[in-house]
């Protein structure tokens, strides 16, 4: 377990209406009121497609809880941008499925419960293929 609380990353999924707006607003408001530092991004999908350098610094945090969507999607959004997450140091809090209290409980809990899907092969752990486009 990390001595420091895990970093927090909140995705607002700004360009789609797939997460209950009340859940998004409730989670963001509580993060704002928590006194904790955190990263808030408008849309992880857009950042992945653009290979936004922010993904690299977000992935490098020694322990991170990500409030976004499904863990499988989050894992490959980061990997396809060339910035794979550390499966042992990442917990994804799925705002598409969790209620606001359940999401906040996990985000603000002291412990980290890694839940990225396990890699099927060593080669896939970090790789989306090399960029040749």
């Amino acid at each position, binding site marked *: 377990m990390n001595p420091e609380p895990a970093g927090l990353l909140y995705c607002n999924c700004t360009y789609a209406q797939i997460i209950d707006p009340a859940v998004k607003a409730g989670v963001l408001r509580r993060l704002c*009121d928590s006194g904790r530092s955190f990263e808030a991004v408008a849309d992880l999908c857009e950042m992945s497609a653009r290979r936004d350098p922010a993904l690299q610094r977000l992935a490098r945090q020694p322990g991170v809880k990500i409030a976004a969507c*499904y863990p499988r999607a989050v894992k490959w959004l980061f990997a396809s941008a060339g910035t794979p997450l550390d499966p042992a140091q990442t917990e994804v809090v799925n705002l598409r499925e969790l209620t606001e209290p359940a999401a906040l409980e996990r985000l603000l809990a002291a412990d980290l419960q890694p839940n990225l899907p396990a890699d099927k092969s060593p080669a896939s752990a970090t790789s989306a293929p090399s960029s040749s486009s």
Partner: protein
Amino acid sequence: MSLRDQTHLRVVLYEGRDSQPLEGGQRFEILSRLLGQGFAVTRVGESGQTAPADDGPALVLGHFRAGAAEQLSAAAPERMRVAEVSGLSGEQVAAVVETTRTERQAVQPGAWKPWFPVIDYDRCTNCMQCLSFCLFGVYGADSGGKIQVQSHDNCKTNCPACSRVCPEAAIMFPKYKAGPINGAAVRDEDLQREKMKVDISALLGGDIYSMLRMRSERAQSRFSKERDSDKALQERQKCLTKLAQAGDIPAEVLMSLPSPEEILRRAGEARAKAQAALAAQQR
């Protein structure tokens, strides 16, 4: 300009040392507004870690003690700007950020709706069916012949058709409404993809795109002869809705399909790319 070849502005809402905390409502309003406009924000609070600094341009927002803002910006004058936001509304802060973004010629967030396939390489077998299927050049292969998404912005918004032809349910669209295409765990029943693919092909007569195009042209021809334009429009919408529901393909995509000759040309190109990639794997 490539999606990947742009400058990004980092916005920091600073409430650490040498600053005063914002009022809670203002903090939430500022964050909500900036996120709604597509910006990413690092909130530096009393505790907890944030992502490390990098070499890109940054705008630091906060309610600073006397002289602190000048000190902060002097640390990296080329890269960092500091703005006092006490008393400003979310809208006013957003205007400050937008001005800085424009001055720094940083990417304009939200200019493109991020809809594109994401490949689950734990599942992908590199069969190249997606590359062969897509007529819009979204897919390509890397130098080792491995499938990859290369032209994200060529993808047709809300169209998940390529995920329907993947036999391994390895293609996700995270903003899609349902699993497993949205990234939810893949269940055994989801692996009936081959069957689904056959069903779609049979429904549309084999070559999905050429059949869709022909149907669209037939519909256009028929409706152009209609005297009752309202009725024609209704019929057209009904026809397209049926197709869209059957194949999960948005009407906008059907309407923007290229000519039959162009479809053939693009399909040939896609097949050639797929074959070259498969050959590269075997070398």
